[in-house]
């Protein structure tokens, strides 16, 4: 079967094409490691059985991987005359239907995701057929759109275990062409012209490297293929070898021919058994066909390829360490110079290139260097294969022209994070690479741009991280990896990484001091600049880039002992507690409720959250999104359980008990006086804790009653005001004095408060409505949501008319809409994005819709339409369409020319609120650009000593629990400053709670309180949610998986 010349090659090509297009149906099953892991072998066997059983004549063949990992196992079906149909997520059970369809000469469309009419293998061309209009072309579906397959030109389409199929698509023709060149320098010139750069990550020009080797005179030269792909999350090279091993062999043949090397070595990870097996087979086939060995293709050229299985040391990816390893020593790098091109393997000139670099070579020879250099950017030409993994919907192997913006990969091809969470960062280049924050996703993927922002191209691993990833922990993870993979030869890497890891563990364990960050940064810089080899020089990158872009996360771990992502387990009780701004001890109060210890549960809840009745009704409940029970069925309904407990308290004799218990917790009087301005949730929380800590607290409030937004903005049907009053009585009962009608800057002066008190806490909220900036906004029929809601809350008559359009998508918009509806209006909410992007609580939106509120999406207000007499008759809206992705991972609403007028007589603008910054400025408090007060994010102290600020005044309009959390944190800091001790943890105390995890999830389905039917509730302001019953609350509490309990498994062992 030896091929001696071009005719021989053409003969094989014809045989191969008969296999690719056999004149009968051909089924290819994607049998890479990834496909097999998802059951491709079973699918293959099932198809085999079905073909036999149904007696269908078709060719069933394994192929490599087409790259779309998220849709594995992939199967492609070709029926002569029709396009190749790519099927995704094929299960063995689907085999019967697939074969049935094939028997009828119809492609099985049910599982089809795309079609291929013709394929350019770059070295050859295959025409499958036209038709199947119902299927999108392969490059029209999001995952493949924008991809360009050069390296992966054959992957998933040919049988990797059959050299004839490789030759059929033009394989080994480029090598033949190369052997026909009168001078080998022509080949090297072509590679130089292509500007191909090393795909292992460093990006050294391949042609220059080859030139060096070819010019070196020696009796023996080696070429090596670096296939020691070891970084976590990277599997490009594995797939390239598994799916198309011959392209690597051909690339190496050309390289050897051009540089005069007579032996090639592939250093391949032993952890890639399938790649080892396929490459071995491919080498044997190539030898059998006379493509390697002596007198290749009838020329005088002799070349052999040896396969060496690496023993799993990451450092052996470093070329000099690899050479040591090949020589039989431990893999430890040598200093360069001498470079391998001068003195490499066994002291002979050696050239090392990455798998992907070699794989590009046949195409460059076949199509020319000029053709190749047209792709990509001027300095980074061609494409690069990336493995896109982590928190991303479409995982898979992606091949892109260099110069593609990163955001296209994340949002267009990858389709963002599953579950709609925000993508936070990308780790490019594995443990040697850097973290790129989402804010930088408009960076283009090329060697220079990535280096500029501190990351590297690396071998092509892209690990996507979302808000549930802690960046400090990510840095710790990668340093732990490089620390254990460090060879130990040079001191910076060996001892430096050890100390860096120790500091990182201190930070994630909540034990670190502020000086540790500086030590870590200095260590990282030193290791980077002083280490011997690439491993050490790049190992600090994850630390340095996270320190650069996510320093606030380090500071949060250090100063607030908090891991927002909920990863560093030493820093929190449970995921729900960690996500709760108030850090309510949720699993513990659930356990107390389950045991029927309602008084204890009530005491704990009040200590954690002084307004449990209000928050139990209206909280945004971030706890639910973190609840691990959702992996079993549905998240716990924690909010309604604590509402249940507060309802129990207000409904009976428990009230006195709770009051007594809280009063009993009050610490001895300190004699310190504290003034709070603003009786909203933040001020109330601060007042509650400061009173319990023994201070003398007075709250000054501009309005007539306490409660802030809870009283004057939240509608009665969500939050009954008599319940709120009862909560306020408890706070007043603990010794907090209220003074009403006191407005900062009018009735109260900050200077006076400061002089008369030991500390001042400002929490005056956000009571100024943002303006929309549209014509006609000044009309009396155009309302601002907070003014409208306040007027209704005060019980004042409102002239809201018959037809109302509410502009906005937040809670204020939905509250206004449902309130207007209850006043008898016909209501439409107009929002500029889509439903899933509405910031309002999802249940509220559903409820509003059930009550009859109309929702209009993708529209932006243009102007208020009035009649001749100036009366509002409608609002003009422009239709928007979602354009490209912005850096926050949402699609930008783009203007269109289409305008519509929605008839109405009143308009409510609910597009945001801001604080009144004037009084603050007057008193010399630093104010940010958006009018919020500038305060420390841990202590909430402003630039004026002992003057603190919190709530929406600092954060901008937020939600009740976040706002209360700032009051709680400020109270802790104020107490700390005034008494010199951190006493809040002692005040909160500990409760004796059973520490046992149910062996199996208990409690059945999620319990939700009964809702008043929509038809009944839409005409009045009666409360909608009736609250859980005793039985429901007990059952719901029992559903908790008790993530707070640690160390039970070991006890049982």
């Amino acid at each position, binding site marked *: 079967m030896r091929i001696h010349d071009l005719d021989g090659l053409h003969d094989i090509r014809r045989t191969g094409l008969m296999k690719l297009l056999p004149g009968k149906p051909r089924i290819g099953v994607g049998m890479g490691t990834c496909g097999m892991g998802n059951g491709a072998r079973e699918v293959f066997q099932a198809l085999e059985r079905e073909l036999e059983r149904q007696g269908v004549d078709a060719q069933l063949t394994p192929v490599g991987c087409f790259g779309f990992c998220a849709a594995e196992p992939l199967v492609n079906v070709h029926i002569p005359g029709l396009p190749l149909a790519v099927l995704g997520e094929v299960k063995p059970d689907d085999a019967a239907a697939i074969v049935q369809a094939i028997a009828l000469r119809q492609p099985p469309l049910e599982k089809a995701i795309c079609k291929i009419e013709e394929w350019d293998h770059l070295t050859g061309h295959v025409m499958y057929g036209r038709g199947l209009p119902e299927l999108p072309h392969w490059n029209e579906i999001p995952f493949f759109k924008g991809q360009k397959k050069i390296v992966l030109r054959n992957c998933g389409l040919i049988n990797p275990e059959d050299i004839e199929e490789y030759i059929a698509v033009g394989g080994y023709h480029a090598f033949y062409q190369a052997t026909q060149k009168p001078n080998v320098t022509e080949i090297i010139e072509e590679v130089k012209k292509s500007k191909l750069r090393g795909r292992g990550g460093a990006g050294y020009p391949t042609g220059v490297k080859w030139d060096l080797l070819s010019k070196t005179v020696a009796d023996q030269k080696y070429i090596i293929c670096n296939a020691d792909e070891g970084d976590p999350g990277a599997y490009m090279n594995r797939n390239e070898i598994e799916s198309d091993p011959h392209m690597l062999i051909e690339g190496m043949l050309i390289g050897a021919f051009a540089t005069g090397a007579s032996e090639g070595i592939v250093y391949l990870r032993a952890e890639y058994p399938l790649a080892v097996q396929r490459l071995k087979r491919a080498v044997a086939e190539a030898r059998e066909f006379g493509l390697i060995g002596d007198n290749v293709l009838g020329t005088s050229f002799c070349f052999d390829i040896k396969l060496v299985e690496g023993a799993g040391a990451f450092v052996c990816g470093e070329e000099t360490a690899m050479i040591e390893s090949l020589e039989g020593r431990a893999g430890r790098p040598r200093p360069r110079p001498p470079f391998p091109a001068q003195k490499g393997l066994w002291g002979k000139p050696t050239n090392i290139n990455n798998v992907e670099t070699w794989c590009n070579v046949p195409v460059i020879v076949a199509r020319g260097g000029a053709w190749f250099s047209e792709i990509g950017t001027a300095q980074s030409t061609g494409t690069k294969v990336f493995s896109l993994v982590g928190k991303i919907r479409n995982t898979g192997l992606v091949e892109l022209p260099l110069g593609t913006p990163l955001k296209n990969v994340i949002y267009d091809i990858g389709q963002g994070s599953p579950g709609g969470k925000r993508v936070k960062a990308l780790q490019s280049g594995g443990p040697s690479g850097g973290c790129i924050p989402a804010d930088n996703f408009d960076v283009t993927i090329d060697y220079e741009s990535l280096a500029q922002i501190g990351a590297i191209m690396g071998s092509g691993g892209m690990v996507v991280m979302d808000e549930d990833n802690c960046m400090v922990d990510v840095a710790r993870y990668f340093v732990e990896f490089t620390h254990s993979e460090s060879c130990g030869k040079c*001191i910076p890497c060996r001892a*430096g990484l*050890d100390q860096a890891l120790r500091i990182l563990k201190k930070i994630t364990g909540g034990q670190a001091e502020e000086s540790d960050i500086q030590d870590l940064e200095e260590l990282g810089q030193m290791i980077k600049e002083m280490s011997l080899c690439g491993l050490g020089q790049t190992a600090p990158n994850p630390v340095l880039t996270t320190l650069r872009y996510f320093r606030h996360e380090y500071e949060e771990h250090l100063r607030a002992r908090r891991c927002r992502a909920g990863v560093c387990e030493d820093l929190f009780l449970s995921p729900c507690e960690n996500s709760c701004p108030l850090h309510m001890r949720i699993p513990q109060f659930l356990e107390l409720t389950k045991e029927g210890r309602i008084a204890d549960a009530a005491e704990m809840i009040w200590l954690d959250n002084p307004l449990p009745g209000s928050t139990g009704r209206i909280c945004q409940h971030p706890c639910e999104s973190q609840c691990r029970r959702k992996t079993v069925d549905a998240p716990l309904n924690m909010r309604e359980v604590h509402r249940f407990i507060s309802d129990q308290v207000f409904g009976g004799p428990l009230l006195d008990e709770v009051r007594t218990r809280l009063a009993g917790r009050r610490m001895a009087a300190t004699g310190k006086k504290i003034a709070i301005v603003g009786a909203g949730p933040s001020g109330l929380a601060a007042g509650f804790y400061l009173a319990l800590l023994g201070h003398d607290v007075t709250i000054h409030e501009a309005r007539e009653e306490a409660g802030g937004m809870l009283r004057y903005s939240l509608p009665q049907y969500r939050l009954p005001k008599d319940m709120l009053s009862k909560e306020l009585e408890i706070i007043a009962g603990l010794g907090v004095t209220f003074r009403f009608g006191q407005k900062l800057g009018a009735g109260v002066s900050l200077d006076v408060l400061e002089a008369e008190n030991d500390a001042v806490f400002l929490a005056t909220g956000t009571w100024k409505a943002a303006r929309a900036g549209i014509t006609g906004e000044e009309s009396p029929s155009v309302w601002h949501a907070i003014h409208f809601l306040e007027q209704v809350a005060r019980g004042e008559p409102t002239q809201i008319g018959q037809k109302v359009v509410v502009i906005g998508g937040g809670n204020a918009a939905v509250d206004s809409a449902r309130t207007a509806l209850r006043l008898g209006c016909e209501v439409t909410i107009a929002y500029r994005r889509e439903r899933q992007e509405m910031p309002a609580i999802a249940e509220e939106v559903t409820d509003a819709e059930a009550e009859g509120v109309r929702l209009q999406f993708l529209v932006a207000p243009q102007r208020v339409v009035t009649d001749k007499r100036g009366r509002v008759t409608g609002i003009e809206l422009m239709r928007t369409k979602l354009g490209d992705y912005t850096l926050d991972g949402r699609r930008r609403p783009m203007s269109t020319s289409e305008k519509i007028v929605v008839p109405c007589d009143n308009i409510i603008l609910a597009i945001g609120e801001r604080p009144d910054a004037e009084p603050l400025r007057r008193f010399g408090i630093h104010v940010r650009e958006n009018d919020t007060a500038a305060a420390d994010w841990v202590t909430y102290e402003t630039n004026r000593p002992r003057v603190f600020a919190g709530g929406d005044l600092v954060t901008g309009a937020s939600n009740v629990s976040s706002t209360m959390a700032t009051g709680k944190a400020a109270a802790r800091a104020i107490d700390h400053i005034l008494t010199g001790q951190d006493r809040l943890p002692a005040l909160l105390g500990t409760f004796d709670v059973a520490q046992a995890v149910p062996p199996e999830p208990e409690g059945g389905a999620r319990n939700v309180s009964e809702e008043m039917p929509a038809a009944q509730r839409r005409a009045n302001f009666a409360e909608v949610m009736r609250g859980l019953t005793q039985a429901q609350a007990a059952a719901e509490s029992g559903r908790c998986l008790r993530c707070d309990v640690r160390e039970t498994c070991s006890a049982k062992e």
Partner: protein
Amino acid sequence: MPKIITLKIAGTEIKADEGSTILDVARTNDIFIPTLCSFKGLSNVGACRLCMVEVRGVPRLLPACATTIVEGMDVTVDSPKVGKYRKMIVELLLAERNHICAACVSNGHCELQALAQRLGVHHTRYPYRYPRLKVDASHVRFNYDPNRCVLCTRCMRACEEVEGARTWNVMGRGINSVMVTDLHQPWGESPSCTSCSKCVHVCPTGALSEKGCAVGEMVPRENVFTYLKSMRYSGR
């Protein structure tokens, strides 16, 4: 005759033979560049990274021991940055193993100690790791205390490149690296060791010492290789 190259080291214009390293030239001209793994007569491994220097026009730091001189080169041997990093390396070494001078045979003759003094390292910012490594006193004439080892591999190179015995090697990797004799057998039972004592006299610290030395008494012999020729078969 080798070609003569003109370069500048620490501001001084120097002429030197082509093919020499920056470190060679600096030493010949009495310009101090700290080193720990380098030893005259042994190959350079570039492991300690203490000899890193700045060369004008080169963005990266370069190891003086492995960088050959080039015409017109301008070398700064102790820039503030390099000085800071060198101190960090010495501190890392002091924290890595149990370097307790007061109880060490090499006190007063230790290169690590001298380096720390010269670089002004009087404390270390990193906490001590306090490894508990087993001392090997099985050899009749020598002691091996890995707790004082800095993994410079001079012993290994002396053994392999000069003596040709290849008794010493590194076991493990990363922070767990440790020098071992043969296949981690007791030194005294080593079939390959010729007891030539080269390793002992090239050791920069008190990790390898002659038996019978008390604190501060282990004085490595100058010019060890010439001296040792005569000692080669006398021991055991």
